[in-house]
């Protein structure tokens, strides 16, 4: 197990390199010029060229990538072209905000998804099953940014019940877990939760239905086990696969949703990426994608380890 862990950690290095390289090249291939983040469009050519030199953007791409990589290895993600602030300072606060949102959205999505999926799988073919499947299909089909706008119109604009934007009355810097702040989290989290809720519902339904058809369930029932007793066995058998799906979904949510965070002006990684893309702010873009990719790798590793712990039949290493 230990060697497996080491190997997985080592795998992360080429993944990080590949992500960094692909991201760097994609931004270079895309039309536009990162200089636009620093110099206004009406800047004369000599000013543009002098700024380009000052920022090292006149160097060959390979050298630019190499310089960036050397800094990253030393733990320095560089500075934003647009603001001059260290990328890590903006990124760390954005990650923290996105994690808060992702955690709450996951809580909503996973709990409701597991309950709906469990009920649908247990009572397959019933009206409960149909309702749960309908909800799940709606969850994965409705564009979440559209849902977000509808929720804002209803709960913020019409009824003034919940705030429409932002991460707290004074911004995320002074976030505390009280109602005044928590209410800012509700609409974006609900919006973000519908897709994982739908996916988890469908996954749990399929797995539970399959387990319920297995002979050992009949055997358990034959032995006189009913209700919670059978349920416990179903949960135990379903958990590894469900956990894998939840892990992937959590990874997606932690990546931040550009659209949902933009609709709600939630200052997370999605909003950070959005503005970095439009401004061609290469250091922010590369740093953010690299860190998020690493999150994904680590999360997958954790899910694998948890699966192993839950199901001794799965051997790693």
């Amino acid at each position, binding site marked *: 197990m230990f060697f497996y862990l080491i190997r997985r950690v080592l795998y992360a290095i080429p993944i990080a390199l590949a992500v960094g390289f692909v991201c760097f090249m994609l931004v270079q291939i895309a039309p536009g010029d990162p200089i636009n983040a620093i110099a*206004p*469009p009406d800047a004369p050519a*000599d000013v543009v060229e002098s700024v380009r030199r000052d920022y090292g953007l006149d160097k060959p791409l390979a050298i630019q990538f190499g310089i960036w990589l050397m800094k990253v290895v030393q733990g320095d993600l560089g500075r934003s072209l647009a603001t001059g*602030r260290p990328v890590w300072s903006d990124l760390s606060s954005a990650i923290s905000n996105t994690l808060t949102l992702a955690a709450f959205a996951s809580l909503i999505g996973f709990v409701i998804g597991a309950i709906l999926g469990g009920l649908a799988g247990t009572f397959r073919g019933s009206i409960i099953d149909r309702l749960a499947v309908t909800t799940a299909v709606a969850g994965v089909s409705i564009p979440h940014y559209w849902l977000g706008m509808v929720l804002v119109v209803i709960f*913020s604009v019409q009824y003034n019940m919940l705030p429409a934007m932002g991460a707290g009355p004074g911004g995320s810097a002074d976030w505390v877990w009280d109602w005044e702040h928590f209410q800012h989290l509700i609409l974006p989290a609900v919006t973000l939760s519908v897709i994982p809720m739908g996916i988890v519902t469908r996954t749990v339904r399929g797995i539970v239905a399959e387990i319920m058809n297995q002979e050992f369930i009949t055997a358990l029932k034959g032995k006189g086990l009913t209700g919670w007793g059978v349920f416990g066995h179903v949960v135990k058998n379903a958990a590894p696969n469900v956990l894998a799906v939840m892990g992937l979904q959590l990874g997606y949510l932690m990546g931040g949703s550009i659209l949902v965070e933009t609709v709600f002006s939630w200052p997370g990684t999605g909003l950070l990426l959005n503005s970095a893309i439009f401004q061609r702010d290469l250091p922010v873009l590369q740093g953010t994608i690299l860190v998020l990719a690493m999150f994904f790798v680590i999360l997958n590793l954790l899910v694998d380890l948890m699966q192993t712990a839950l199901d001794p039949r799965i051997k790693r290493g």
Partner: protein
Amino acid sequence: MLRRFLLAACAVAMPLAAQAQGTLRIGMTAADIPLTHGQPDQGFEGNRFTGIPLYDGLTAWDLSAADRASVVIAGLAERWESDPADRTRWVFHLRRGVTFHDGSAFNADAVVWNVRKVLDREAPHFDPRQVGLTASRMPTLRRAERIDDHTVALFTSEPDSLLPINLTNLFMASPTHWERLRTQHPNAEATWNAFAANPSGTGPFRLTRFVPRERAEMTRNDNYWGTRARLDRVVLLPIPDANARTAALLSNQVDWIEAPSPDAVPQIRSRGFNITQNLQPHVWPWQPCFTETSPLRDVRVRRAINLAIDREQIRTLLGGLMVPAVGTVAPGHPWWGNPSFRIRTDLPEARRLLAEAGYNAQRPLTLRVQISASGSGQMQPLPMNELLQQQLRAVGVNVEFDTIEWNALFTNWRNGCAHASARGAHAINVSFAAMDPFFAMVRFWDSKMAAPTSNNWGMFNDPRFDAMVAEARNAFEPAARDAALARLHAAGVDEALFIWIAHDVAPRAMSRRIQGYVQPQSWFVDLRLPSIQ
């Protein structure tokens, strides 16, 4: 029981009372707080919200009235003159008794220090980031020299009467405060970052809280040298999405939003909010290409296109939120002049001109225009351009669009229409600010400004215009300068050097609790004027 009730009532009323003391919350279109170190980014929205409120320049814009063009007035310099013996030398006489937010004195040394921050690479506080944001807006300024404590000489690369206008873009940051921060930070870049988080200017507001990407809070500077602000506090919130801004206003999370979507205006009005607008020195044009192969090289074609456009239809499309453009500046502006070509909708004349230029049903004119799908200042580029396409079809002109992402279009704009990035376009649709003569006319019509030097994308080259630009730059009396600029503008309209479509009106939606607000004919506003009930 009664006492408890009164206490509870007071507790409930307290936050309302605090708000009523004058905190104005503004939803900006920017995705981040514009830079606060003295040379804001985010275009003129940056100057509007973190430039002018926190800092002053040697000269300033008059933002006090809505019914006349905004002109340059005294700022931290009380008066200035060009040296008749050496027209590249200007003398600025500074306002006395002005202090920065940190308490240090504003004087000639501070001016020299602020010029060096963007023009002197050897200066310890030189900041390349501010160069890009500033140098392009004062292209001829070269250096500054202290004459005495309250007088400073500024030198330009060539005689340039436009310098006082350009200097509205150079904001004065506190050297003392910067030097103090420098002792705590390893290099100039880090010091400027620290300065941005804790800036010191001379403006009517001081920055008291800064949460990157989320909010900036400014409180009134009670030691301001001029008329003090009526508001206690201004909170700036970046809300780039137009729907999110509207929702924030309608749910009372902000009191004022920039650029509401035209679609949302009726709803905003119906909910009791005010929509304010005024003519803005902004132009939404098609900029022609003048190279040999471009049909727009022919003045008859350029005039015909200008006459074939029904600008009122476009105004209707935008819910009334534009002013039809019949020149770079509007009639009545000091630089309007007296053009003989009157831009209007006249389809028979447009058809006649096109026929004279050799275009007819057998030989239709096809124009290729580079446009963007969105972008700062671009208003509603897709529906506006599609309407233009329909209108021009009525006079037999086919328009093809090459739609490009906004950032890429900017890059192409610098390259010029002869460059491969133009992909054979005959015109480009990039809106621009026209507050300053350099930005309004010189950079487009002076042959020295041909791409990639500046924004003469169309490679326009006419010695008559070069001479008129030189004449304007050498007219050092304001009235003579304005007259020269008016001649330049009138000649530009007569030659139809743009296809002029619209001026933006800078729509803002705001709560009725805001009193005293003035929307000048400018990109900027004076945040000292409004109060909130």
